[in-house]
């Protein structure tokens, strides 16, 4: 069954133009992605075991996904043996229903959350608010975009598109609404201290915590959460009720497997050997225990994931949401996450969004937001064949006749020419003859028909006279043949 993903339904050209006009976003996103991409390279260089660990982690993830159902059954058994409850959710709607039911059964009024892409996928906050439950994001970046009523622009750094002045304005508004002291300045430390103070009240007042999950260990029934801020520890330790919503593909068969994968999100995501906090939940608080939730619910979300099982796209289920493919993608660095229109942006979003929804939403992603430069394929620590998949998705779209007729015709026409050296040379001669009407200031600035769109945002040098091929033919080419 196809999954449901929330989308920005504005057409691609609108999303694109908005992104290209947002200079603040471009500046911050370029800084953040470069910094993190460099940190990843530095971390692997300084950690000789890192590469071997990474390869082993790929094996663990692949094998775990292969027998996913079996492992999920063991996981459920283990969690229930240790006081927790496991719910399976086929769709986003099922998951929302389950979470709201738990909240309703306990008369929950205040929820605190860790950062979780799955709950973004569900738009869980909106669901809570629609039934009058206050919900607070506690990851600093998520807190910022919650105040701004926006979606994350980066899997790992949700507020990477905002600068400090914008954030100070949001915090000032929040302080006024909650009658508390606003941040002392737009200094980044002052802003962080404001969030610490404000969110501290929310941590202590909440009656339910909601988390996502980085890994699930079947053998021990353990949920693993990775943060740098420490908010997951608050969310799992303080409120009496804990709900963890996790994608089924997060399952790892056994404890030795966990030890192989546990460093990967931090190593490839932010260039640390481990994040500041790794939090493991393996059941409810025992009768003799002081800490841990009284009640723990794990919601295992499918939402289109098992559609990918036993297909050439199965490796996508190994994704650990580290964001490495986003950080190196030249398109992502220009347009940021919002332009994709999906909760999952960047190369992984291009691949996952159509696959999870059976091409029902945003089918343009593989065609328009990738240059096939292959940087994502090199960066992915889980060896997911992102560039290969993007090509395959384009092929599926063509086979299903999903591209506009004009586009398909143009490409077919173009392909016919460039499939042979003779056709290529002929097309170049024609282009040289035809370009005279379109060259301004020594560059081709426009073109007729469908090709015109290409020149909306760029130009190109005219066809040379003679071309390299012609020159070669006339000079050295001749010499060699004799």
């Amino acid at each position, binding site marked *: 069954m196809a999954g449901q993903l929330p989308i920005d339904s504005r057409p691609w050209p609108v999303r694109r133009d908005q992104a290209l006009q947002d200079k603040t976003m471009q500046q911050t996103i370029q800084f953040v992605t470069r910094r993190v991409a460099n940190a990843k390279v530095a971390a692997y260089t300084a950690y000789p075991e890192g590469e071997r660990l990474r390869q082993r982690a790929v094996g663990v993830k692949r094998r775990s996904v292969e027998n996913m159902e079996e492992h999920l059954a063991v996981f459920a058994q283990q969690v229930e043996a240790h006081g927790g409850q496991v719910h399976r959710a086929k769709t986003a709607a099922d998951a929302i229903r389950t979470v709201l039911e738990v909240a309703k059964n306990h008369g929950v009024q205040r929820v605190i959350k860790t950062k979780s892409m799955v709950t973004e996928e569900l738009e869980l906050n909106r669901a809570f608010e629609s039934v009058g439950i206050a919900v607070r994001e506690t990851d600093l970046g998520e807190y910022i975009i919650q105040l701004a009523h926006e979606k994350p622009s980066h899997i790992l750094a949700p507020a990477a598109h905002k600068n400090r002045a914008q954030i100070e304005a949001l915090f000032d508004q929040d302080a006024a609404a909650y009658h508390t002291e606003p941040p002392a300045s737009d200094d980044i430390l002052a802003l962080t201290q404001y969030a610490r103070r404000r969110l501290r009240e929310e941590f202590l007042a909440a009656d339910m915590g909601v988390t996502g999950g980085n890994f699930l260990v079947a053998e021990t029934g353990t949920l693993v959460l990775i943060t740098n801020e420490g908010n997951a520890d608050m969310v799992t330790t*303080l409120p009496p009720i804990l709900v963890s919503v996790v994608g089924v593909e997060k399952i790892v068969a056994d404890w030795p497997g966990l030890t192989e994968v546990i460093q990967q999100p931090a190593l490839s995501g932010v260039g640390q050997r481990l994040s500041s906090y790794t939090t493991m939940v393996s059941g409810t608080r025992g009768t003799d225990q002081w*800490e*841990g939730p009284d009640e723990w619910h794990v919601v295992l979300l499918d939402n289109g994931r098992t559609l990918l099982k036993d297909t050439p796209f199965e490796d996508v289920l190994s994704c650990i949401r580290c964001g490495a493919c986003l950080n190196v993608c030249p398109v992502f660095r220009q347009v940021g996450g919002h332009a994709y229109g999906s909760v999952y942006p960047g190369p992984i979003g291009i691949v996952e969004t159509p696959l999870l929804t059976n091409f029902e939403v945003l089918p343009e992603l593989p065609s328009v937001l990738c240059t096939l430069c292959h940087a994502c394929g090199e960066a992915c620590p889980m060896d997911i064949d992102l560039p290969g998949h993007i090509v395959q998705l384009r092929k599926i779209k063509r086979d299903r006749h999903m591209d506009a007729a004009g586009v398909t015709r143009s490409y077919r026409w173009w392909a016919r020419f460039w499939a042979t050296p003779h056709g290529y040379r002929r097309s170049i001669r024609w282009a040289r003859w035809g370009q005279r009407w379109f060259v301004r200031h020594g560059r081709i600035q426009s073109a007729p028909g469908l090709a015109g769109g290409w020149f909306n945002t760029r130009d190109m040098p005219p066809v040379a006279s003679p071309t390299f091929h012609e020159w070669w033919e006339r000079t050295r080419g001749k010499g060699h043949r004799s």
Partner: protein
Amino acid sequence: MIETEALRNQFQRQFEALGGHVFYASNSERLPVVLASAYQAMVDRYLPDGPLQVVYWLNLDLSVLDLEGILGGIRGTQCICWPQGSRQHAVQEKWRDLLAESQVGITGAAWAAADTGSVALYSSPSTGLLPSLLMPIHIILLNQKRIQPSVSDGLKKLYQESETQGRMPPLVKLITGPSMTADIEGQLVIGVHGPTAIGVVVYE
């Protein structure tokens, strides 16, 4: 032993690279002095003003350590032992407030990992996570015998212990540096939700 010393040095290098502080007591007699100076250095640096209240629990090998006696003289520090055994809900609420109002958490540790500079804490009837959670300063007393070569070795140890115990601790936490974020303009800031400053006193 050369091996433990190498592990201790590696752990120290990693932990300090993350922004943590490491102090070393070469024998148990020196521990009170080293702890007092570590505590003094950290509170003076990170909390130069205001009252000081410590919430603590210690590993069994230090059950005779008189924390009140060691720290009481430093800016009138109050020490409160993190309770043990069973509890009622009402008591937990009160404890939560108390923890939120304290400035320093002092805890033992289950183990540490040299390769990543991590320290592991378990929730159990006698050991807890709350003192590592809410206070601005967290100091860990770590017996150097507990330092494992790698985080994988530590996790293996946790697994073996859980097999004898019959279950995993409900909560386990690996601490690898202070609480931090780079969520605003990609700039690193220390001390978001958890401790701003974290120190380890390694003793033999």
